[in-house]
């Protein structure tokens, strides 16, 4: 009953079945092409711009060592960013960030970018209980709805308690830390300003 007729037939059948299955599998698999996302370039440009703007806001423009008092040295000078965070001056922060990040320049007068940046920022601090707390800081006109594609840029801000002679631009002992919610330590500290940036 069992003989060796049809061997090649059988092999041929098996091969054909295997070929059919495997080829169908490959065809379905290769339809999912990997396309490098173009949004990465935009993210890179946006992140670089945001980091530059925050870094420049964190640089003091002018150092004017005071001749009054031996305790003044120019390391007490607050950068515009440190001042904004320390005095919770969100209006100043918003204006400065808008100027730094949104200007483009025509020749010779700068124009404003037609697709301006929007942002939403938060301050993170280390609490007295050694955990990390946060409070919201400045926002641009448009609120974050959660559906925007945003990039995150951060900047360390040093909140300095050094007493001054009430000279503008220097640390002011009349402003007492905590400037945020309870739990913020009342002393020299470093906080993280985290800004979410997107274009409309």
């Amino acid at each position, binding site marked *: 009953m069992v003989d060796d007729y049809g061997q090649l037939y059988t092999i041929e059948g098996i091969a*054909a079945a295997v070929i059919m299955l495997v080829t169908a599998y490959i065809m379905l698999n290769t339809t999912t092409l990997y396309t490098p996302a173009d949004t990465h370039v935009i993210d890179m440009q946006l992140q670089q711009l945001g980091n*530059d703007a925050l870094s*420049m806001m964190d640089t003091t423009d002018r150092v004017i060592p005071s001749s009054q008092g*031996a305790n003044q040295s120019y390391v007490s000078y607050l950068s515009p960013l440190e001042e904004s965070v320390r005095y919770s001056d969100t209006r100043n922060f918003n204006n400065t960030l808008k100027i730094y990040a949104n200007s483009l320049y025509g020749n010779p007068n700068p124009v404003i970018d037609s697709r301006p940046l929007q942002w939403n920022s938060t301050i993170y601090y280390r609490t007295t209980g050694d955990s990390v707390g946060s409070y919201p800081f400045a926002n641009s006109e448009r609120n974050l709805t959660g559906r925007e594609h945003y990039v995150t840029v951060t900047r360390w801000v040093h909140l300095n308690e050094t007493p001054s002679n009430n000279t503008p631009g220097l640390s002011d002992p009349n402003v007492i830390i905590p400037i945020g919610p309870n739990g913020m330590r009342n002393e020299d500290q470093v906080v993280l300003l985290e800004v979410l940036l997107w274009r409309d």
Partner: protein
Amino acid sequence: MAKKMDNSGLLSIDFIAGFTIFMIAFIAVATLISGLLVNLQSKTIDYDAVAYRTGVILVEDPGYGVDPVSTNYTTNWELIPLVQKENILRYGLAVSKDYPNILSEYKVSKFFTIPAYSGDYHRKVIFDEPPILGPLTTPLYHYNIQLTSIENQASPKYWFPPVGDEVSNITNTGYIHRVVKIKAPANGDNPPMDMAKDNTNVVVSGIPNGTFIVYFDFPSYYDKQDPIYGIDPLTENTSFTITNIPANTTLQALNTGLYIDSNPKLGNVGGGDTLISQMDQGEILLDGVLPWTNHSSIQNLNSIRVFLNPEFFIQKNIERGRQYYIRFNLEGSGYNTTQDYNFPWISTIPGTGVSSPPLVPADMEVRIW
């Protein structure tokens, strides 16, 4: 069945079915495979990457070159004379690599305004290296670099003509936008040197009466100043004004010029110090307007304004570790000698009352296509 295995050329149905499906699937895959390889061997160049790299080199790198005199590597490429610009390896605009995004005004003005440098930007800023070298090679990239200060700041405004090719409405450009601060030139007018108020009026043997001395303590500039807030006459333009010159004073050419202080430890300039060079004509404005030509003696001055650029010091082979001073022989002023009026520097030590030169916010845009 054995009887079917003959050479009549008939194939079984299932083989035909399988083979048909195989061919359809194979043709589909072959079409898709040709699409797969497009992403791996793209003919489109990533212009945004080139623009980003160019932006980083310009804004975060101080540049690099070989100093022709000392044959050391230096980041002050702007001080290498124009005829030896082949020694420049890379153009960068930052003050130093520890302070990214702070640009040196002298580097910026040279980069944007000297046409002789712009022929090198393909190789030394954009690093555009076409595969075939030689005089007839056309570069791969067009570029356009612009720098403008941001409005609404109470500080000097900078606008330079853009460098590179004209931007027409080309759709596929690589683009990067950087925010920087330009360190403006220092100004010794802050406060001005008032001959009446600041005169120490001492007698120094060997130095004629009426000499006004402006002292440059170069070691202090490097030891005690912050690179972005300090004043560095050897790498920046500087200026100062001597005001309130009494009537009947004559500015003499003899005994006026740049001197080296041979004995700085003594605390006084000495009469025996050697003259390095006389002041050149373009450096001094009398009464703020008239250049001092012919080194002739001038009478009835109110003020003397002096402009110094780094080449003033470099061309005279100034050593950074020594002290120098500029003497003005103001005969008939009624004073003896003003000793050691220090050209100011911004110290980290409190109590020195001079402002730093301002940092001016600016935008840089780089386009590559």
